[in-house]
């Protein structure tokens, strides 16, 4: 390939330029994969919260923490537009944010089937079985895919959740979002764990069966969950009500930071990589002035000259992109392999990210090569031929 021969004229310089782009694309792929992971988790949350409203006690944040009285269920269900309120328990798996897991693991307790088919967010079993209402009173659990990996548990094994032994009856398929790092237990078992978690001086009067940490509220058909959320807020200011838009708002700022980092990395790689391609191509053009003169003289059009040089710089960009992608993918795969131990996979390298990275670097190379190429094509062929 003639193009490759042109690149091989100055192998060191070409390699360095390719490396410049490689670094940029590598960063783009690594950060992009991290952002993908975060976005997947957020998207999962958005989907989950889209058609329902959650109610928790004030100060609970995202569903765990403050106890609520089980009577709240009846209170909520009395409000117009509420089809069903399902009590649930949610709590972090560890009190402190633990090392590898970033404190994202949690335990959720709910009576299986209590949603009466209203829940639209479907969880599929990878192995074993789902929880049933008959499990109430026993200590069984269904684990998310990441947490199962973290425990190294399979169906039939016993795991310890907050100092209590549970038998694993099922493991979920990966969802790329919250359920992956959660352990699902029957409501009663969850209530016990929850009360155990509460400091003794507050917990002594609590009957575990009367305590929940949150409600999942399903609106009646035709009722806008956002409107219902407003009604719930009005009904009792001590409730912390969260709708789909609240979730998006709360979590959106976190995603925005990641996306800003991604854009920042992209811009830096654009600037550094692009400048180095411009530099390389400008030097190539200077060295090949005479050759460009020959080509122009014997009838090579300006378009052809520009085309050849732009193709060459696009190839530099492409090579840098592919190398950066390979190295970035290596980091993502290796990082996830290391994170497998703790159950937390930090990277999600999607085909879209891979294609975008390589396409971006190729276009970057082409655009950067365009300026010197146009300069070359405008050379006076006679002057260029005399150039030594």
């Amino acid at each position, binding site marked *: 390939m*003639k193009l490759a021969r042109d690149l091989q004229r100055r192998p060191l310089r070409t390699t360095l330029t390719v490396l410049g782009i490689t670094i940029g694309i590598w960063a783009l792929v690594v950060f992009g994969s991290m952002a993908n992971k975060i976005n997947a988790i957020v998207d999962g949350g958005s989907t989950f919260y889209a058609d329902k409203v959650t109610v928790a006690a004030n100060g609970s944040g995202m569903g765990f923490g403050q106890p609520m009285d089980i009577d709240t269920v009846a209170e909520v269900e009395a409000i117009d537009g509420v089809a069903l309120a399902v009590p649930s328990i949610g709590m972090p798996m560890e009190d402190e944010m633990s090392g590898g897991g970033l404190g994202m693991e949690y335990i959720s307790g709910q009576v299986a089937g209590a949603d009466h088919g209203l829940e639209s967010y479907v969880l599929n079993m990878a192995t074993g079985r789902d929880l049933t209402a008959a499990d109430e009173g026993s200590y069984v659990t269904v684990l998310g895919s990441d947490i199962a990996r973290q425990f190294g548990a399979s169906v039939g094994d016993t795991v310890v959740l907050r100092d209590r032994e549970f038998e694993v009856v099922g493991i979920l398929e990966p969802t790329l979002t919250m359920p992956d790092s959660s352990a699902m237990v029957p409501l009663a078992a969850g209530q016990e764990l929850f009360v155990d978690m509460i400091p003794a001086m507050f917990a002594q009067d609590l009957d575990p069966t009367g305590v929940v940490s949150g409600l999942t509220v399903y609106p009646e058909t035709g009722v806008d969950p956002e409107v219902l959320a407003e009604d719930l807020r009005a009904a009792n200011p001590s409730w912390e009500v969260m709708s789909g838009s609240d979730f998006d708002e709360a979590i959106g700022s976190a995603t925005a930071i990641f996306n800003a980092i991604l854009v920042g990395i992209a811009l830096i790689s654009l600037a550094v990589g692009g400048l180095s391609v411009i530099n390389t191509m400008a030097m190539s053009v200077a060295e090949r002035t*005479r050759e460009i003169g*020959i080509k122009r*003289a*014997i*009838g*090579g*059009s*300006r378009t*052809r000259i520009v085309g050849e040089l732009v193709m060459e710089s696009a190839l530099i960009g492409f090579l840098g992109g592919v190398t950066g992608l390979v190295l970035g993918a290596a980091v993502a795969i290796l990082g996830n392999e290391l994170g497998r131990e703790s159950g937390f996979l930090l990277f999600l390298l999607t085909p879209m990210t891979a294609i975008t990275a390589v396409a971006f670097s190729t276009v970057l190379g082409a655009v950067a090569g365009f300026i010197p190429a146009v300069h070359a094509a405008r050379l006076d062929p006679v002057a260029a031929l005399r150039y030594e």
Partner: protein
Amino acid sequence: MTDPRLRFDPRTQFDTDRKDHDVISNALIEARDLRKTYQLGKRAAVPALRGVDISIAEGEMVAIMGPSGSGKSTLMHILGLLHAPDADGGPSPELWFEGRDMTRLSESERTRIRARRMGFVFQSFNLVPTLTARENVLLACDYAGLKGTSAQVAAEHVLRLVGLDDRGDHRPAELSGGEQQRIAAARALVNRPSLILADEPTGNLDSQRATEILELVRWFNREHGQTILLVTHDPEVGNACDRVVHMRDGLVADHGAVPVPHPIAAAPQTAIPSAA
């Protein structure tokens, strides 16, 4: 060869164009009032051509000679459409090639004519160093719009004619000066252009290689009727040509004896070898 330009017969073109433009019937090139001043920096201006009229008949092999700075290279660059003559400072220049007015063409049209109707040979060979000999020849085909098998066939043919069909896969650096110049000649000839422009083609060659190149060019001139325009210092090269145009101080000092019927005389065309 599907492009009609590649099958262009200058004489038929001439007969039709003659009605529109007052052009001498068998002149391949007809130029009047060619002037060119080169600007060196802000103050210094060097008048390289100061009003040159020249006429070159089809099938002629003409040498342009003269001392350094006499304007012979400049004249060749203008006739080869690499530079445009100055339009200001005197009567409007005229430049006709194959019966077409060259003064009003865009840069891309001039490039197209260079690619298809002209061939260039330079003193320092000027092959593209990263391409093999064959690819250098094919490059000219490509620029002329000839691709694929037809280009391959044309390239092989012309490489055989210059006696280097066995050296086609070598890069210029692996070839001797004489071989490089023969490849350059092959590149110039592959599209069967009506005009070959050669700037000191023998300047970097020893006398034996110089003679070889000259004979090669002469052969193409005789066999294919290609018009040859050479710029040279070498009187031997001049002697091998039909006519020598002498230049001095940016003007034609002597148009040279005309062994073939002079274009102005509108001679019968049977004397000119067929370009077919």
